[in-house]
């Protein structure tokens, strides 16, 4: 759990750093996409903290975490689909960034938990 927390916190910091660098280069929209990515990692830092508060049992914590990892992005997938249907490229890319970040969180959790 602590390892995953460190990975996610590092990703939050990395996204914030990247957003700041892009903003400094007058790439505000790209910076905002990085902020969106960072926010997704931030959400799962909070989920992980909530999981640790709820139970001291690692299996229960993992179940809680993975359950939220499934549940939270379901709305994003719907939003992405709707954006695609109405040709809203801007929203589509934003949802893609969020979903790509979710994939990274899944990957990180699988690497640590198997």
């Amino acid at each position, binding site marked *: 759990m602590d390892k995953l927390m460190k990975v996610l916190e590092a990703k939050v910091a990395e996204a914030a750093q990247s957003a700041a660098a892009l903003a400094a*280069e*007058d*790439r*505000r*929209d*790209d910076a905002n*996409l990085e902020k969106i990515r960072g926010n997704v990692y931030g959400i799962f830092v909070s989920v992980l903290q909530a999981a640790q508060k709820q139970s001291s049992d690692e299996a229960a914590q993992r179940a809680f975490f993975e359950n939220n990892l499934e549940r939270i992005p379901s709305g994003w997938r719907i939003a992405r689909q709707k954006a695609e249907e109405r040709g809203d*490229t*801007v929203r*589509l*890319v934003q949802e*893609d*960034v969020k979903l790509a970040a979710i994939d990274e969180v899944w990957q990180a959790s699988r690497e640590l938990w198997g």
Partner: protein
Amino acid sequence: MTEQEAVALFKCLADRTRLQILHTLAREDAYVELLSERLGMAPSTISFHLKKLADVGAVSSSKSQYYTMYTLNRELFDKTMLSILQQESDDAAVQDERERQWREKVLRSFFDEDGRLRTIPAQRKKRLIVLERLAEEFEPGRDYSEREVNLIIANYHDDFCTLRRDLVDECFMRREDGQYRRVVR
């Protein structure tokens, strides 16, 4: 181009990634994958910025076999900054509308239901509005005797002497050889 459109355009252009895309398109038309390769950015990022550029009319797209080609809107970029700045401001129209509404409010409060002037406004700005309204009772280009002027004004207020003098002092009417004539503004 309206003021709102100009703001949207300048906001859109104030982004280095989009300027790089436009820089590439200024040389030749391109599709997303090509721009992505040339600028070293994800195709989704390029699409994101192209959408924003298309929304402000900076680029246009057309289907070409397998790809959607993007073209710089040269007509837009041929415009000078001065021509954009010389466009009538949307704000000016809003101001005009506010001014019109305020004038109507002043007239409603100083004229009663029968069209009589309740009181002569003390505030000059309001008095000017009332005087302008009274001046409309006089035909442009026609001379009126003082008696005629008094009678017309008396239909609105008993103090026709003050109002008649005010009409002349505020240049709504001109007095020459005892004759009064409306000044067309």
